[in-house]
């Protein structure tokens, strides 16, 4: 045994790991685990904003799972988010593909332009759509100008509708979705494409058999990247959604905040959403890991 080996085996107190992890873990416990536990307590009346003693109850959960109203709203929001996520990924892919493979030296400038809207307020960007989609907005004014609609009969479904919510959400999230796909494509080994070409594959075949499968982790990540936040979205629907664009997140917000609040039901709905989102996040993490392995 050499001298050095003996020194390595000598036990010593390693404070690096707990030192590094301690603060983030404490932060996570204080601002994530504890609040969720509090919400959980409200969901069974262990805590209540109504003064007095309340027996523990699962009525809120029973109402959610046996009633059709809130589950119906949840599925409506899921469908809206799925459509938005799907459409945005389809739109973002060519954009990311162009940025990754065009060979232009200005691709990072273009990327900056892509994310430029984020330099302005989220609220402002959503409100701008009211000006565009309103009965007297840009779209309707143009349609009247070219004679397709009369001034008394504008397309009213453009604003305060499900369509308006999905359009604005798609606009808001498009740059976000393009980024993970771009990263996935840019780190792709282009020698594989050269090999495919040498072996006689057409560009389309090379795309279908090499580029697309290898960028799939980026696509899945991008899809979840938009689906998870939009399913609980409430700001955009409250601004441009009207009654038909009302989403699950609005219901949670209203149950906690407006009129005469019902924190128990609000907590149940919030935890149910979390119960759906957590498995998706696990999938997200696994996909990200797969992506690393693939490269």
């Amino acid at each position: 045994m050499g001298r050095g080996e003996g020194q390595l085996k000598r036990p010593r107190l390693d404070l690096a790991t707990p030192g590094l992890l301690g603060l983030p873990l404490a932060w996570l416990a204080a601002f994530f685990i504890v609040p969720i536990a509090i919400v959980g307590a409200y969901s069974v009346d262990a805590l209540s904003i109504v003064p007095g003693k309340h027996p523990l109850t699962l009525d809120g959960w029973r109402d959610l799972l046996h009633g059709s109203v809130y589950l119906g709203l949840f599925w409506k929001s899921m469908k809206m988010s799925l459509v938005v996520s799907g459409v945005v990924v389809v739109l973002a892919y060519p954009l990311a593909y162009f940025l990754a493979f065009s060979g232009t030296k200005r691709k990072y400038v273009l990327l900056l332009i892509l994310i430029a809207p984020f330099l302005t307020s989220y609220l402002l960007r959503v409100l701008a759509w009211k000006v565009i989609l309103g009965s007297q907005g840009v779209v309707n004014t143009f349609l009247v100008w070219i004679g397709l609609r009369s001034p008394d009969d504008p397309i009213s479904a453009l604003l305060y509708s499900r369509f308006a919510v999905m359009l604005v959400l798609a606009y808001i999230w498009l740059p976000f979705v393009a980024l993970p796909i771009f990263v996935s494509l840019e780190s792709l080994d282009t020698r594989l494409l050269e090999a495919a070409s040498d072996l006689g594959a057409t560009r389309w075949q090379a795309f279908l058999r090499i580029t697309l499968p290898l960028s799939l982790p980026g696509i899945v990540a991008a899809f979840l990247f938009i689906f998870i936040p939009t399913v609980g979205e409430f700001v955009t629907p409250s601004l441009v959604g009207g009654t038909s664009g009302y989403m699950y997140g609005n219901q949670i917000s209203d149950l906690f905040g407006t009129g005469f609040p019902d924190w128990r039901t609000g907590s149940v709905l919030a935890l149910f959403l979390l119960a759906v989102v957590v498995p998706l996040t696990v999938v997200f993490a696994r996909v990200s890991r797969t992506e690393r392995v693939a490269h």
Partner: protein
Amino acid sequence: MENERDLTERRLSRHDLLKLAAAAGGAGLVAGRAGAGRAALARFTAESGTLQVLDWAGYEVKQLWQPYLKKYPGQAPKFTFMTNEANALAKLQAGLRPDVVRPYVGYIQDFAQSGFFQPWTPALISNFKHLNRGMVKAGQFGGKQWGIPADWGFDAILYRTDKVKPKARSWGLLFDERYKGKIAWFDDLNALVVAGYYLGFKKPYDQSDAELKRSQDFLKSKKHLVRMFWASETDLDNAFASGELWIAYAWPNDWVLMKGKGLKVEYMYPKEGPISWIGMFMLGKNTPRPQHAHAFVDAWSSVQSAKWLEDNYGYGEANTLARPTSSDLLKVLKLTNPRAVQEPNAHIDRHIPRRSLYARMWEEVKAS
């Protein structure tokens, strides 16, 4: 430090207040005891600290309580804002202890029973005698004056006369199939009350289970007509002014505003009766600043403040002597008839015994 605070921010109960009033009155009656009366007054009025007001955003402007500043120069109240009554109660439960809070009339009983408030002493409010009697009565609970009326208005229907031809002067206009996509409802559980009036129930504020189910089913069946549920007046006014809406559950000031924008509009009082809402000042229990609190509410109740509120916000004010500059507002608020806000002309908003059930059923309407 804490002891010092206890001494300076001594909490006075209603009992202390009555003793103060008695001392002040006694001093007036017994000339020889004037010095003692003044001493008692000084002892009880030794208030310190800034008046704490929990109020709605927009009501902090000093023109609405200018006389208070004249009485207490340089002692502007500190305002904290509430977004609704439940939010106010939540703040109180979290430990906030304002001297004055302003819920609306339907919540007087809930607030009185919450344990956070005490009744007012009307004798300490010089303008009390000018306040609308019906509104004053609406501020009473258990024979005591828990609420001092201030701002008020109606809930009725605003519509475009160039676009809409009502079949009747009725709440039914909010449920008219001909105007699908052009209607706005107020985002409030009172929608069930309105449905109750429209469906002819005897006690819309206290519907039976079967009636509530009918009201809820009715609202669900008409929800497809509704473009938006408004929670903010700004949202309503913007949407109405831009032509997105033709019919709305609205307040009188919205009519004045839309008329001012050149729209052809009418504010319709339905035959089933409009609903009248009244802001009610409530006094914090054991407030350390009862004199300041009474002076603040007295300032709000002055003709000067009332007229400013009417002219600038378009709401009514409980002081019956106040008259707005606008003849339109005078007309729409029916200010020449002090009984316009109460039965049988209108239904003053009131306590809903099963409010949480109403709230849940309204949320289900929205979610459906």
